[in-house]
Every structure is written in structure tokens, then in C-alpha cells.
């Protein structure tokens, strides 16, 4: 064939190329061009989620509050789990907040590519929009549930340090989003190829709830190596950081650094795998 390979082609302005995928690129420029689509997908997910439910938005509040009550009765009162001297309802609710973002974000994101298969096969847009916006929808629930948290803090007359909140609350949310996004993209991509992940993810989430310091404090582990092991789980870092922001819960900075590093690792692995497989989603979805 006399034609040159696509790599050698010079493009003029306003031109673009459709060719076999070769090198990895994040293509942020394109993502930015489609920024409104993030908004629309997120808006749709939020809007549709509680349509035709009697309680509507109340569900966003009811879910964590009921979980809080359940855990308080079992782990707080009956089993007397160590909560670093903080009233157990406050302690467990603070954990459930970020855990909610992670668990609903991850399960939405993992299913997102498959549930959008009909769109993926018909229209082109940067595919990252889909898992990303399903996580943004989960973040919306967080902000509603957060209002209840403020009420709980007032009821239990928990003293807070405003400066610490302003620094560490956004940081802990960011850490959660990065973690959720990395794992969400990873599972979303795998789910397109291997539908086994439909079953793996719910199980994994159930499992992870008990590995994370949601219902207990990491300080219950006495062995040093256990502390390090737990820190590799970025959500442990995020939850501990958010507790540190509001409550006088101790925090270890070296362990937090490990969590942050691990979050970024998952983030890059997730995006890399997603981008690599993206070109073939329409063929195999």
C-alpha cells in the first residue's frame, strides 16, 4: 500500500484524524469541551433516582440515619466498640458519610458503562464522562446527608475547630473522590469485558465496609504492621482525616501519606486501563 502510516500525517488546524488507537493520552482538552455533559448526566442521575418514590429526597437522609441507629445499637451499646472517646452515633455517622460516597459511587460507576451501552454504541463523546458523572451524583447525596451531620454535631454538643474543618473536610472529600474514581473507572472498564464484575463489586463493597474504619477506630489495632496494612486502603485515610476535621480523633500523618499515595496509584491505574479499553467499548458492550 502506498499510503503512509497515520503517525506520519501532518494535520492542519481544524482537521482531525480517525485512526487505530496507538498511544495513551488523557485528552483533557476534549473532556473540557464536553464539560456540559458532566452536568447533564449528573443532573439526570439525581433527578431520576428518586422519581416515583413516596419519600423522594428523604431517602438520601434516611439511609445513613437508619444505618447509624443500627450500628449504634449493635456496636456502640451492645459491643461497646472503641470510638476514641467520641459519642458513638457521631463517630459512626461521620464514617458513614464518606463511605456512602465511596460505596454508591463505586457501584454506580462500575455499572455505568454497561447501563449506557445503548448510548455508547450510537454516539461518540469522551467515555470518561459516564463513570465520572455517576460519582458526582453520589457526591450530591453526600452533601444532603452532611446537613444531617451538622444537626447531629449540635445535638451531641461536639466542639469543633472551624479552621481544621475548612482544610481537612475538602481534603478528605477529594481523597474519597480520587479513590472512587480510580476504582470506578477500573471496574467500569472490566465490567464491559467481563460481566463477572457485576457480582464482584457488591460483594467487595460489603467486605470493604468491615475493613474500613467506619464502625470502629483504627486505633483498636495494636500491632504496628496492621496499621500500615490498613493505610494502604485509601478510604481508611479519607475517613480518618474527616474524623480529624470534626472530632478530636487522633491521626497519624505517615499513615495518611501512604493512603494518599495509594489513592493516586489507583486513580492512575483506573484511568489508564479505562482509556486503553475505551476504543473497543462499542464493539463489546
Amino acid at each position: 500500500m502506498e499510503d503512509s502510516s497515520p503517525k506520519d500525517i501532518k494535520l492542519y488546524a481544524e482537521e482531525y484524524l480517525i485512526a487505530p488507537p496507538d498511544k495513551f493520552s488523557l485528552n483533557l482538552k476534549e473532556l473540557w469541551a464536553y464539560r456540559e455533559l458532566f452536568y447533564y448526566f449528573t443532573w439526570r442521575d439525581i433527578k431520576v433516582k428518586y422519581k416515583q418514590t413516596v419519600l423522594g429526597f428523604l431517602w438520601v437522609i434516611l439511609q445513613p440515619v437508619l444505618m447509624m441507629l443500627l450500628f449504634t445499637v449493635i456496636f456502640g451499646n451492645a459491643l461497646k466498640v472503641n470510638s476514641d472517646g467520641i459519642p458513638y452515633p457521631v463517630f459512626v455517622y461521620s464514617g458513614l458519610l464518606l463511605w456512602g460516597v465511596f460505596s454508591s459511587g463505586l457501584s454506580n460507576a462500575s455499572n455505568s458503562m454497561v447501563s449506557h451501552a445503548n448510548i455508547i454504541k450510537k454516539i461518540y463523546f469522551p467515555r470518561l464522562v459516564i463513570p465520572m458523572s455517576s460519582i458526582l451524583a453520589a457526591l450530591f447525596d453526600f452533601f444532603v446527608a452532611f446537613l444531617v451531620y451538622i444537626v447531629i454535631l449540635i445535638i451531641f454538643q461536639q466542639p469543633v475547630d472551624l479552621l481544621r474543618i475548612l482544610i481537612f473536610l475538602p481534603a478528605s472529600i477529594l481523597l474519597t473522590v480520587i479513590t472512587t474514581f480510580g476504582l470506578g473507572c477500573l471496574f467500569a472498564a472490566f465490567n464491559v469485558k467481563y460481566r463477572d464484575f457485576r457480582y464482584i463489586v457488591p460483594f467487595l463493597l460489603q467486605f470493604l465496609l468491615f475493613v474500613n474504619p467506619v464502625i470502629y477506630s483504627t486505633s483498636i489495632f495494636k500491632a504496628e504492621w496492621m496499621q500500615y496494612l490498613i493505610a494502604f486502603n485509601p478510604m481508611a485515610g479519607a475517613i480518618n482525616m474527616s474524623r480529624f476535621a470534626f472530632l478530636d480523633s487522633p491521626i497519624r500523618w505517615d499513615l495518611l501519606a501512604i493512603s494518599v499515595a495509594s489513592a493516586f496509584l489507583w486513580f492512575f491505574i483506573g484511568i489508564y486501563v479505562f482509556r486503553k479499553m475505551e476504543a473497543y467499548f462499542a464493539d463489546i458492550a
Partner: protein
Amino acid sequence: MKPVLEINNISKEYRINQGAQAYLSLRDSVTSFFTGKKIAKNQFWALRDVQFNILPGESIGVIGRNGSGKSTLLKILSKITFPSKGYIRARGRVASLLEVGTGFHMELTGRENIFLNGAILGLTKKEIVERFDDIVAFSGVEAFLDTPLKHYSNGMALRLAFAVAAHLDPEILLIDEVLAVGDEAFQKKCIGKMDEVSKSGKTILFVSHNMNAVQQLCKRTIVLDQGQVKFDGPTKEAIQFYLENSNSWQSDNLQDRKDRKGGKKFKFTKIACFGDDISKAVRVFRSGQNIRVQLHYTHQFTEKVPITLALDFQKSGNQHLMSCRNAVVGQQLFLEPNKNAYFECHIPRLPLTPGRYYFNLTAYFNEKIIDRIHDVGYIDVSFGDYYGSGTLPPRYAGVCIDYQWK
């Protein structure tokens, strides 16, 4: 003038996993990793070295049988999937309409869906707001704008979807058979709108089975067959070429089919369909065209015996439409001893509407089945002037019948 789309030697390879699923189970991958056995894969080329240019303002039709690569070509042009080889150089914003109403959500209202669908199709919020009134007026569903889509009739949802799509305003518009849906009035409206778009200097690539629409919209047409460009030229000649040439049928061999009932004393061996030209078997027909179906057989009867044959036409989805039996029309067929030949069923003015039809064959002797095979070969029927009136029968009618209005 520089072409808006330069399509350079595009090829697309698909790998089909053994079994019906496109996706794998993890178990399969894991076992193949440990046992070293490769998962059996069939590969086939949906497109091979497709090459052509499109100049600004051109309206180009793409026609070809089902499976000829038309849709794959559109998917590559709209970046939904990538070519395996070759490249396309594009100049200008491409919008593709492979389906109307992509991303519509049943729980959202008409108004909300206009915004959502517009955004998915690549419009900015500002653009949607600007065009909102035109879209609503075009769709004719003003009264239901704040009703959830699930309460819309199919027709209303479709009109709304097309209204959004019709206001995209890209430099290059790719359209795939969106006109195959909806009633006749709606189809006319769609073609009218597309005609308007093409006259305004936009470039259109139109993939369709509807020869009339292609003829109306496109000056130049490309014929695809088995992933290759077989013809590229004026639409009239392209349609002529398509109906005559890319339509040859190597008759389906039934000799070795195992999924049959009977087949010992009597066996169907081959099926082929012909139009008026009996020298060449074909697979594509137009409604209203004469068709003859040839059934070859072998048998082991030692004396002359009468048999009954049934040739059933079945639409995909197991919908039986017609059954041609010699006994019903009072005709007798005989098998001559030691003579293997064929029977022919003549159907004047094929009354089927566009679609793909499969055959089921059954042979009876003494009211017992002596051979039966399902899904033997198929024909593709395209739009045709069945009534000779210059107006095409609607697609949703299952079959055409003769009737009179007084």
C-alpha cells in the same frame, strides 16, 4: 476544494468469540490462561480497504445488503469505534444520527429530554436554548412539554427525537436509516428536512435501504458489498448496479445440514431464488417483483410418488408470514424414480414489505414429514412499487394485498 472527509484505506476487523456473547466471562479467560488453550475466535473483516473522498456540500448515499459494512463505516466515521487499519482525515464538525432519541430518559419530561438529548448529541446549553422554540415547533408536542416521556406515544417521542436531531447544524451529517421508523407523513417530513439541510450546503452521508429516499437525497452513491466499495458514482447507476450485481447469491447448500427432521428417503439439497432473469440467482428483491424459489433435492423412492411441499416465509423473530403449499392450491407434485431434480415455486408480485425473510422447508409423503429444515437461506426485500401506483406501501404493513376503495 479540499474534501471534508478523506477516507484512506479503512479496514475494520471484528473478532467474534465462540458462542453468542460478545463479552467474555472471567472464568473463560482464567482457564485459558492456565490451560494455555486459546479461546477460539473467528475473525472477519467488516470493512476492507475502503477509500473515497467527500467534498463539502455533497450528499452521498451508501447502499448495500445487510452485513455489507454500511453501519460499521458510519460507526467509524462518527468515532464510536476505531478502524483496525487506515485513517480518516476530517475537516469540520461531524454529527451522527445512528438512531434518533439516543439517551432519552422515560422518567424525564419532554423539556428535560430536549436538553439531555441535545447535550449528548454535542450541543452546548446556549445552542439548545437558542434552538429550543424551533425544536418544539418542529416536533409538534408543545402541549406535553412538561409531561414525562413515558406518557408519550411512540410517534410523539419519535417526533421529539427527530426534532432535536434536525437542529444539530453540523458541517457533516451522518444518517443511518432513521427514516425507517414512523408513519409515512413523518418520513416525508424527515426527508424534507434532510433535503433542506443538504440544499443549505451541508455535507450528508446517508445510509439506507430505502432506494427512493437515496435517489431523492443523493447525487452520488456508494455501493458496499462484503466490506468493499463495489461502485462509486451517480445514484441512478449505483442503484442499478446494486440491484443487478452486488446481489448475486451462491445458492445455499442444504446437503450437509444436520438440524433437520427426516432427510433419509428425501432430502432438500439446495435452495436458490431468482427474479425475472433465470440465469442468475439473487438475494435482494423489491416488493412487487416476480420471484421464483428453486428447491433441489435427492430421493430414494423406487416408484413414482406424490409428495407435498411447504415453503414458509418467516420474518426474523419467528413471525410466519406466508406459506406456499402445493396441496392447498390443488397442484400435485411427483417424484420420478431415480431422478434428482428440483421444484420451483413461482410467486408473481412478491407481496412482502422491506425486511429480511427466512425460509422453512417441509416435504410430506403420505401426510408424514420426510424432510424438514428451518432457517434455510434468506432474501432481503427492499421498497418497491407493489401497486404500480407510484406510491410505496408503508413498511409496517406485514404483507401487501390487493384491494379496492369505493
